[in-house]
């Protein structure tokens, strides 16, 4: 079971993981990225490259399933305006034993951060907005899977 979803409406960890949870594996691991109230941020806005995004995320999932023995993997990403406290991204992996699910989860989010065409803009209480700068640490984490 491999599932990629781009959503312009609110997402929840449990809804995105529900299929994985019932897949029959002993191990289910997940990561949820949540909008943080970082220095007055009220929301983030996510732009993406529609004709490319889904294929990129599918390639990340394919790479994970090629690398680990997984029963399933999901990646769901919000686009549009996401208020503080709401999930931006949910990734999850199911496997028979825990090592595979845990490692694949870290891989999915690390690779998504560097490979998928999303851009974040932070909105502040005073009405201003600022594009988020890419972090070198994300490249480093993504490259350790190479």
């Amino acid at each position, binding site marked *: 079971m491999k599932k990629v979803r781009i959503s312009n409406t609110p997402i929840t960890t449990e809804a995105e993981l529900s299929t994985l949870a019932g897949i029959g594996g002993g191990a289910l691991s997940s990561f949820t*990225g949540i909008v943080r109230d970082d220095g007055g941020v009220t929301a983030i806005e996510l732009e993406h490259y529609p004709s490319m995004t889904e294929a990129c995320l599918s390639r990340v999932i394919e790479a994970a399933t090629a690398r680990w023995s997984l029963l399933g993997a999901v990646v769901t990403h919000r686009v549009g305006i996401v208020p503080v406290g709401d999930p931006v991204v949910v990734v999850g992996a199911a496997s028979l034993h825990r090592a595979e699910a845990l490692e694949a989860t870290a891989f999915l989010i690390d690779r998504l951060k560097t490979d998928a065409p999303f851009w974040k803009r932070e909105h502040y209480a005073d009405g201003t907005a600022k594009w988020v700068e890419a972090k070198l640490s994300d490249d480093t984490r993504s490259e350790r899977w190479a």
Partner: protein
Amino acid sequence: MKLVYFASVREAIGLSSEDRDIPYGARTVGDFVVWLRGQSQGHAVALDDLSRLRFALDQNMVTADALLVDGEELAIFPPVTGG
């Protein structure tokens, strides 16, 4: 060729996309982008530093030295920040 822009590049140029003929002598993505700088003040600002830009040719990430041949859509954008 169809050019598509995202995030800060889109904002600086003031366009989401535009159609441009590949200029004479431009063989790579980088050649095309350097030429685009001359098209407006916005292009000049947005495309000033190749090292801070990323490119996708027909929806595949490429580097500035990728050949343009047969490409239909070139996307130009800052490093991605999803997740």
